[in-house]
């Protein structure tokens, strides 16, 4: 009897990760032909359709500057800043990390785990905002439903500061 329970627990444990819904985001940071290039600051968050609830997913900023000096430009991601950026204490576990070079970058978020956590069912918009020192600023939006009922791929594209943003959902 005891054995069977253990076995059941083991089966459930191994099955659980496969049951957790996944949200993957691929962002293309374009190579820009400019005289003075700085890597972009990038923020990514989910907003409920009514705009109320905000879930922070990722913030990339210059973490190498002395005395956390890179935080000075966080406010230049203006939309993110208004959507809770200004209330965050950075660095923030599971959310903040260093800026990244031009190229394709993948991020993977799993239901139940930070920073996605227990996201309530509903219609959301994924926002990706990029801002570059001595450069421009751009926001790309991708609508999505959570939790996903089936595997789905969707996306959008920026004009200059951001290339393709692809969202893959897995139930």
């Amino acid at each position: 009897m005891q054995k069977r329970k253990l076995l059941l627990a083991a089966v459930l444990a191994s099955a659980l990760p496969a049951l957790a819904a996944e949200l993957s985001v691929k962002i293309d940071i374009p190579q820009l032909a400019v005289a003075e290039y700085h890597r972009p600051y990038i923020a990514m968050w989910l907003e409920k359709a009514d705009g109320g609830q905000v879930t922070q997913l990722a913030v990339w900023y210059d973490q190498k500057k002395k005395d956390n000096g890179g935080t000075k430009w966080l406010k230049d991601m203006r939309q993110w800043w208004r959507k809770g950026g200004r209330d965050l204490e950075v660095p923030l576990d599971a959310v903040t990390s260093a800026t990244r070079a031009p190229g394709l970058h993948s991020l993977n978020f799993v239901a139940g785990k930070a920073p996605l956590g227990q996201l309530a069912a509903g219609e959301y918009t994924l926002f990706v905002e990029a801002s570059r020192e001595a450069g421009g600023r751009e926001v790309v939006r991708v609508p999505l439903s959570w939790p996903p009922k089936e595997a789905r791929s969707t996306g959008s594209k920026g004009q200059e500061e951001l290339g393709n943003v692809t969202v893959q959902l897995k139930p």
Partner: protein
Amino acid sequence: MHSLTRSFLAVALLASVSVAHAHRTWLLPSAAQVDGKDPWVTVDAAVSEDLFELGANALKLDGLSITDPDGGAVQPNQTFTGKYRSSLDLKLAKSGTYRISLVSETAMASYKLNGEMKRWRGNVADLKKEIPAEAEELAVSTTFGRLETFVTAGKPNATVLKPVGSGLELIPLDHPSEFLVGQPARFRLLLDGKPLPGLTVAVVPGGVKYRGVLKETALTTDAKGEFTVNWPMPQMYWINAGYPARVTVPEGQPRPPMPAKRYNYSGTFEVLPQ
């Protein structure tokens, strides 16, 4: 040990340069072409992160030089320096094109005094009196800067479009008060009066705050030091070049030593719709 101190010093100097470089210095004329019976122009001088958006500091108007359409020197009618900008008002008494320049020589010095590293930044003229004679391991880098814009009252002329012949300067080969979208504009870049080939020049439209995307173009001067700009939209533009060119050092690699002389040029040009 000595070379270690040196390279630390070079890094420290370069670090301060890159911080300063994130800010852009500019002149902004109220218009490039002024018509009418009583033409006046106002020019703002400031340092900021986004072009033509006030927000960091005013620029001092020391080193201001205004050349009138006959090639003579003129003084502004009034000047003002506030928190975010300096301004000058100029009555365009003569018909033709004026050149308004702000020329600077800035020194960055680093030295050891009683075993302690010190840094100093200021006008070249103050260098001798500000740095103690007993300073050791003195390293100085001088930046020659030129900020410029052109304005025309009535009919344009070309007297002020001749090179000054010193430092880094940009000579418009098409008339700078008559730039229009859809009409390519040619320029020649000179160092001490000689064409400077193979240097990358940044062409940046203002107003990025309201547009988001920067729309900057990087152009490289040809064998004659020339390049052609195709304006993407009507706007005030900032054209900038620095010599020697900035080098991008891969992460973890040591930075090259700071050049003893650096040159920086920024010109502001108005581009109107067709």
